[in-house]
């Protein structure tokens, strides 16, 4: 099968390419970018005139709800494709948690059968994610897990974390950690500050993040493990990551897309759609996130997609389940961040394509000859309104419900297979 994506504005963040040209695909790989070879006779031509051709988005965190609820993954995969997402990292906080090879195999099978985006399972770092005993992480790695994560917060016991880092270092496996110190986060539901104070919401102080990061980096210095920090939320936390990188620690970091745009004030009158984990913080923190993305302290933006149903959202703010649907809004919200902050598109797209792919060590996220043909063709000028009927995900709750957003995927290709716009 030969496909040409013709006359689109091709943006490849990995190489810095940004110009109108053709992209040729033979079977599942890119065979030419630029001038179409004379002997290339496509079976299919996709007219990308006026559209942008970019690597498919690689999302470092999206919950596909399997294992846990059967059939859910297929639905969420349609959301991924609609959002131009071709690679999805699945966190292990499923039900049951991804701590056994059998579960990982099942997830990969279900995922392949769904003909959606590629899935990259994260294995549970500890059995049952309980934080006390290591899961069989080397075996899980051989089964297809790309890295190992402790979701929620750090293990209570620092020696568990230190040994986990040492064991991971033994096999050069990367660990993904949420910088949350549980005893300081407590039962908080909003960021500590004037908004939580006024609304009388139990709050999570910034020190819950910074103390966790200090612990993480100290133990990393002692162990030499490779780490990825998930979902930074505070200016002080970002500063600690910046210093760790300057020091040369092998660490990368991401933020959720909502935290690039929203702040605690947006909670308004207890709007549970703004109940997120980590909580939305102050404008100063949001500005630090934007600055951290610009200077590369923050490597990647993820959707942190969580399809939370109405039964779990139509509750008092503190009782509502945190999270929002975001696979379909990741691309337009990334474009919104770029245009509002005058970030060149090639730089902005790197945060959702090439950098996350590099973090995964994957041969995607770039439009170079020989790479896997995971591609999104999107219309940067397409207006669309975020409404429940437009969203493919089972989760309809998002802080951006009712918003007009700019930018919509027209074609999504995974391994040369046209899975959206076919």
């Amino acid at each position, binding site marked *: 099968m030969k496909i040409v994506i013709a006359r689109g504005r091709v943006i490849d963040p990995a190489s810095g390419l940004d110009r109108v040209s053709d992209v040729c695909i033979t079977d599942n790989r890119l065979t030419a970018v630029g001038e179409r070879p004379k002997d290339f006779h496509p079976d299919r031509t996709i007219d990308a005139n006026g559209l942008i051709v970019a690597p498919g988005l690689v999302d470092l965190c999206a919950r596909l709800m399997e294992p846990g609820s059967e059939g859910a993954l297929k639905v969420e995969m349609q959301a991924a494709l609609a959002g131009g997402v071709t690679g999805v990292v699945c966190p292990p906080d499923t039900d049951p948690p991804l701590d056994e090879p059998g579960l990982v195999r099942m997830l990969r099978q279900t995922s392949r059968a769904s003909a959606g985006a590629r899935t990259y399972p994260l294995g549970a770092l500890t059995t049952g994610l309980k934080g006390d005993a290591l899961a069989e992480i080397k075996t899980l790695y051989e089964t297809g897990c790309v890295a190992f994560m402790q979701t929620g917060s750090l293990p209570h016991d620092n020696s568990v974390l230190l040994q986990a880092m040492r064991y991971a270092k033994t096999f050069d496996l990367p660990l993904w950690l949420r910088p949350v110190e549980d005893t300081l986060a407590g039962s908080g539901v909003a960021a*500590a*500050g*004037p*908004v*939580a*104070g*006024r*609304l*009388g*919401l*139990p*709050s999570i102080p910034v020190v819950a993040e910074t103390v966790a990061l200090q612990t993480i980096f100290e133990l990393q210095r002692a162990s030499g493990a490779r780490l990825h920090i998930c979902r930074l939320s505070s200016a002080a936390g970002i500063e600690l990551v910046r210093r760790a990188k300057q020091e040369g620690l092998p660490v990368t970091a991401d933020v959720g897309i909502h935290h690039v745009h929203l702040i605690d004030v*947006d909670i*308004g*009158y*207890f*709007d*549970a759609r703004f109940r997120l984990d980590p909580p939305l913080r102050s404008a100063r923190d949001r500005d630090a996130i934007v600055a951290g993305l610009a200077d590369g302290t923050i490597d990647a933006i993820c959707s942190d997609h969580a399809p939370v149903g109405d*039964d779990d959202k*139509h*509750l*008092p*703010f*503190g*009782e509502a389940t945190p999270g929002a649907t975001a696979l379909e809004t990741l691309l337009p919200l990334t474009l919104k961040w770029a245009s509002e902050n005058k970030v060149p598109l090639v730089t902005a797209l790197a945060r959702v394509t090439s950098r996350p792919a590099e973090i995964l060590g994957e041969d995607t996220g770039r439009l170079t000859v020989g790479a896997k043909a995971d591609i999104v063709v999107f219309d940067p000028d397409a207006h669309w309104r975020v409404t429940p009927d437009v969203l493919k995900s089972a989760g309809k709750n998002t*802080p951006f419900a009712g918003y007009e957003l700019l930018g919509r995927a027209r074609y999504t290709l995974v391994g040369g297979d046209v899975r959206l716009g076919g």
Partner: protein
Amino acid sequence: MGTRNPQLNSNGELHHLLSTEGLPKAVIERILSTADSFINVAEREVKSVPLLRGKSVFNLFFENSTRTRTTFEIAARRLSADVFNLDIIRSSAAKGESLLDTIDNLSAMQADMFVVRHAASGAPYLIAQHVKPHIHVINAGDGRHAHPTQGLLDMYTIRHYKKEFTNLTVAIVGDILHSRVARSDIHALTTLGVPDVRAVGPLTLLPAGLEEMGLRVFTKLEEGIKGADVIIMLRLQNERMKGALLPSAQEYFAYYGLTPEKLALAKPDAIVMHPGPMNRGVEIDSRVADGASAVILPQVTFGIAVRMAALSIAASSSRMQ
């Protein structure tokens, strides 16, 4: 992002009473002056007026509070409403019914007004956004967030004794972090133009953002009540002693308990208020609680009239648009 004041209808009339925050000064003043007219009702032979005749008021207490529920019940009955008390803790919620399902069920019983007490901050907002446009929601206390009728009865009490707000120094003392009364008082006091509102307590009991709300923060009781016209003592719940917020009731009383000696630092005609129930010997010395400065029992009496005013004003607003 949904920031329109959810308490007011499109004519700016009070439709739900959810918080004193964002309540226009004119609305607060109207509630206080309407309460004036109800003060005398209690002293009449027939202790009721027909303003809510034929209306059904449901007291929905998801959290126990016999005292507050009773004052709302008296207020609604004096307005001639039909009052129904639902002890939610022991009924539907225990069976796993969701909050909004409970509300839908009760709405189907032709409720006109819900008086809601809930442990989660913001729960009455969720209910107010959900109910049909003719139904009114009155917040009788939500989590740490608000207790607007208590805030308003405190304003009524202050006005009764001090006449004006714009020349006052008001000190709020104690567990402000966990207090919905404190938050409701703060917003009402600043809206009514009190120039010096103070928060007094140990740093473990003071929430972030008090300065942004227009307060001066004091950690020493003696400094915080110096020259005050009004001292509002907050209840300190026993459960606060369990963690690391405070070492003991004894130490709290030694540094933050209001004794006659400390009260002497306030203005000679200062009044001492407390939302009740009091912990004698923890936040307040009995000699102060029973002394000439205390206006704690009048607060309770005024509370009925203020709640009558709030219920009748909300009930008279046109439909929520």
